[in-house]
């Protein structure tokens, strides 16, 4: 897998992780419910899933790039992912859950291809 491919994958995993963490919070789950959205998982499970994705992101980055590069890449991608999620929460809330799922699928495809 090329470095750009890796970074893209990390960002996608980061986006779904951040989506999970975001929707696990009462405030945002409530906002989503107000727009007519429903969540398939409880808050606690979402939080676990989110952290699991973040951990896997770091493990994956470290395996591919070693400790130093891996940690830097994973942290940087997490920052970008958090930005994408907060923008979606603020301006396109109904799309958030879909964003999380789609980026997880894309990440999986990239992993299989690359």
């Amino acid at each position, binding site marked *: 897998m090329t*470095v*750009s491919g890796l970074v893209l994958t990390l960002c996608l995993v980061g986006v779904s992780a951040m989506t999970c963490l975001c929707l696990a919070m009462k*405030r945002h789950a409530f906002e989503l419910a107000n727009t007519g959205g429903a969540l398939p998982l409880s808050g606690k499970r979402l939080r676990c899933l989110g952290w699991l994705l973040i951990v896997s992101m770091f493990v994956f980055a470290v395996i591919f790039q070693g400790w*130093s*590069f891996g940690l830097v890449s994973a942290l*940087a*991608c997490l920052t970008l992912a958090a*930005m994408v999620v*907060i923008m979606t929460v603020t301006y396109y809330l109904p799309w958030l859950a879909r964003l999380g799922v789609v980026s997880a699928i894309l990440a999986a495809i990239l992993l299989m291809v690359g």
Partner: protein
Amino acid sequence: MSQSPLSNKKASASPDGGFRQAMTWLHTWVGLTLGWVLFLIFVTGTAGYFDTEIDRWMQPELPFVEAPLSALETANVVRARLEQEAPQAERWYINLPAGRNQLYPSVFWQGASEEAGASSARGRLTLDSKTGETLTPRDTGGGQTLYQMHWRLHYLGRGYSDWIIGLATLFMMVGLVTGIIIHKKIFVDFFTFRPGKGQRSWLDAHNFFSVFALPFHLMITYSGLLFMGFSLMPLIVASHYGDEGRRQFFAEVFDPPGIVDAANTPAPLVPFTSVIHQAEQRWGQGRVQVVDVHHPQDASARVVLYESIDQTVSTSGERLVFDGVTGDLLHTEPTDASMVKHVRDVFLGLHEGLFAGTALRWLYFLSGVLGTGMVATGLILWTTKRRKTAERKPGRTHRGLVLVEKLNIGTIAGLPAGMATYFWANRLLPVNMAGRGEWEIHILFLTWLAMLLYAALRPRLKAWQELLAATGVLFATLPVLNALTTERHLLHSLKSGDWVFAGFDITVFVIGVGFVFAAYRVRSSRLSDLQKPHKPKSTAVKVSKLQDTTGGAV
């Protein structure tokens, strides 16, 4: 307010208010005092992550670099040139082209003998790697000067600038730690941004810029202090090495082992063939970054090869020390020969990000933008808070508030305008003009000054709107200027796959559009504000709109 055990303890120690209040006070004032210097540091530092790319855009006559020659061929070409240019030197320092950070070979020498035919005792040249000819592009400040402004305030000597930058960095560090302490709900508010709610929105934006890139901010600030380490804390070295002992300390820390004084007996310098061959066997093809020759053509010559730092986050790789006459390998110095130096090198390496490839470099750039946004929103937050109070008490003058507001407008919108005119000057000043590179920089600062004056004379929101618009137009039209003044316009760059040129054109265009959009948002909120009668509430709306825009643009 939730109180930690720590804050209870401190609160009892200070009758003036709680621990958190004291920390808020400190956060506010360390942030404001040198806030505009910090803005300059963040803006130019962020641009600096693309310093060589900006260099290339600013010297369009330089050839598009194709596949470079092998390290050995290049080193030999450069060596032939150095033998003419700098005979009997104390040192030749050859930087070989290696990826993004070094496009053309460059050399530096010192202590050459002018009697033996040297062009000067010390010098620095950028060469063509095939012919060894000096490259003579237009004189420009380039990306390097822009990036150096980041740690060396251009017109001041190092003696002053190190202290100002150091103090600003120190305040930044204090600001970060106090900011973490006073942020009540760092996790609860993590994904919360509430636009259109005045001061609340500014605070959200400030938190957003700060928290998301917090690891970056902490790393960049502490390592920033370490860059200034020996200037800011000279006493530690001096007390152990004496006042004059700095050189010895630096030699002990930074020089590779096995360097000896010149024997003053001429001896031919070993050919680079076997030396570079050994290094490449160890490190891989094309991974020799520096050929550092101590006392060339002397009996005690040493050839030190530096490994490329493309596979480490540190500022230094492995070094091999060869005897410069026999070509024997004398020492292999691993990166972590000294653990303490290694820690420092990793900090500095993370700061500079020279190891970062394209994708990671963009993420560095993004983190820099977030840092810039953090400083900008912090400065604006200071004014929105006070503007609200001030408007409740009309008739009183608020000199401090007005001053900060004007400085904010002139700097947050005006300094980027200065950078845009820096690029304009690069294309418009006559190519043969004397002191051309220096004038580009003068124009940057003159523009900034003009923007500050303009902001001082205009009403606040009009000044924001007009300066943001001007900055936006200056940036967005740069690709047009480039197309008119060179043959390397955007379509040409895209067709020939020159991503550096295309990337620059597209990036400045996007930045420009961002600024114009910001100006548009200020305008619409200003107009809607005018239609309503003057109520305290409208201030909040107006301010929050402004925040959406500048927050997103800077």
